């Protein structure tokens, strides 16, 4: 484990940025935080959650896939893929780190999504332990330890120091580059910190959430539940929950006519939208109840069913604070019996 005085944080960022672009949470000038490309003057904002999750790095809201050029009546197809540059993301919370695992299962299984894979391969993730979890946090329910975040490098921040621990080869290489700015220390130095975090987690109001009743084989139990109608009653059908969610990975592929050709791009889509997965015959889920059910069944039942029990929610709490009508996965889970006995 390495340690660095916070007074040298800027130097540390400077150093990281020398070899690869560094991104870290900074103010969005509107009361929130957003991952920002570091440059001199950009200050690290130690907030719990960025408004947008770091999934943007690998699965941006929209990206161009290919282009078609029209030459007379002939069409030429252009491969516009480019190799990503190396980059480092600093300050990723334990929940968000976990979300990459959820996304990887989707994008890196066959057929591999080369766009996603390309960026994923070039990223080094420095996670950050959560010193002040919020009332909307419930990552513990998903087996996530906010005191021991994963990632290529794990980080802990105290009043005066930053502790860094490499978990992967990539992480170790990065820390090696920073050796001049850091000093070796014992892993046990962060133990009291971890203890403190774990104690806080137990006091959180959503501590009682349990996954016992969800996961594999629960489709029949919940699919026809009358509760869906009631729970989705107020849902506006907007995409806020899906767009702030670190694990939502649905997208639409669309063509944009530029006048001289066509850009084929993909952009986030939301299963809450009425035109989601619209096909020639129409939509597969025509009412908001069905769409609402789909979102939560996917997170709590279908995804784990297909991914060895891994849930497609990491308890980051973004949807809890952002839903316009305050309906969210916690309310759904509780209504369906997801509380510890």
């Amino acid at each position, binding site marked *: 484990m390495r340690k660095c005085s916070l007074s040298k944080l800027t130097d540390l960022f400077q150093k990281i940025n020398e070899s690869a672009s560094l991104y870290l949470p900074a103010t969005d000038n509107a009361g929130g935080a957003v991952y920002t490309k570091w440059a001199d003057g950009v200050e690290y904002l130690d907030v719990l959650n960025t408004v947008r999750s770091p999934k943007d790095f690998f699965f941006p809201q929209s990206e161009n896939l290919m282009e078609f050029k029209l030459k007379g009546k002939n069409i030429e197809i252009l491969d516009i893929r480019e190799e990503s540059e190396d980059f480092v993301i600093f300050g990723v919370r334990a929940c968000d780190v976990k979300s990459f695992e959820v996304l990887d299962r989707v994008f890196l299984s066959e057929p591999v999504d080369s766009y996603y894979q390309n960026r994923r391969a070039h990223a080094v993730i420095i996670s950050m332990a959560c010193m002040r979890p919020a009332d909307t946090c419930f990552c513990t329910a998903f087996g996530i330890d906010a005191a021991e975040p994963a990632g290529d490098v794990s980080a802990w921040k105290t009043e005066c120091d930053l502790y860094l621990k490499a978990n992967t080869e990539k992480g170790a290489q990065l820390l090696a580059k920073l050796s001049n700015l850091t000093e070796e220390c014992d892993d046990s130095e962060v133990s009291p910190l971890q203890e403190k975090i774990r104690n806080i987690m137990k006091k959180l109001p959503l501590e009682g959430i349990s996954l016992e009743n969800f996961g594999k084989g629960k489709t029949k139990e919940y699919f026809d539940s009358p509760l869906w109608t009631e729970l989705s009653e107020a849902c506006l059908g907007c995409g806020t929950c899906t767009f702030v969610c670190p694990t939502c990975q649905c997208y639409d592929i669309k063509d*944009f006519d*530029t006048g001289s050709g066509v850009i084929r791009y993909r952009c986030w889509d939301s299963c809450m939208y009425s035109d989601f997965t619209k096909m020639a015959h129409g939509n597969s889920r025509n009412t908001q109840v069905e769409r609402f059910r789909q979102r939560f069944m996917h997170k709590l039942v279908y995804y784990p069913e297909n991914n060895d029990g891994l849930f497609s929610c990491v308890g980051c709490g973004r949807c809890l604070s952002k839903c316009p009508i305050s309906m969210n996965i916690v309310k759904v889970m509780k209504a369906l019996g997801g509380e510890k006995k």
Partner: protein
Amino acid sequence: MQVNEYKPLIVAFCCNWCSYAGADLAGNNRLNYPADVKIIRVPCSCRVNPMFILRAFQRGADGVIICGCHPGDCHYTSGNYYTRRRMALLFSMLDFLGIERERTRLEWVSAAEGAKFAATMNDFAETVAALGENKRLEDLRCKK
């Protein structure tokens, strides 16, 4: 002649009954205006949806002008009165968003005002040319 002289692209929506006829009259009288001005015929200025105007800017227009019958002369009695309100509010909003206010214009040109049509287009083309390329409402995907 300079080869790379900047040529603004101007879309002019003209109502069929007055302004389009005014443009025809400008032609009959061989009154010059820049070829940068391209006219789209609409039945009435009130057919012009703000979406069309933004679309033109997105696609690379540097100026958009809407021409209709003079107030009181609308072929459909009241169409241009609605246009007047819609455009007043739209132009003000675009200005509020920091889009150059000179890029949009609403003019009344009657079927008898061929000279006014040509003069208006000359003036507008000059104004827009002075502003330079539309950068604030452009869509980079549509750049050639």
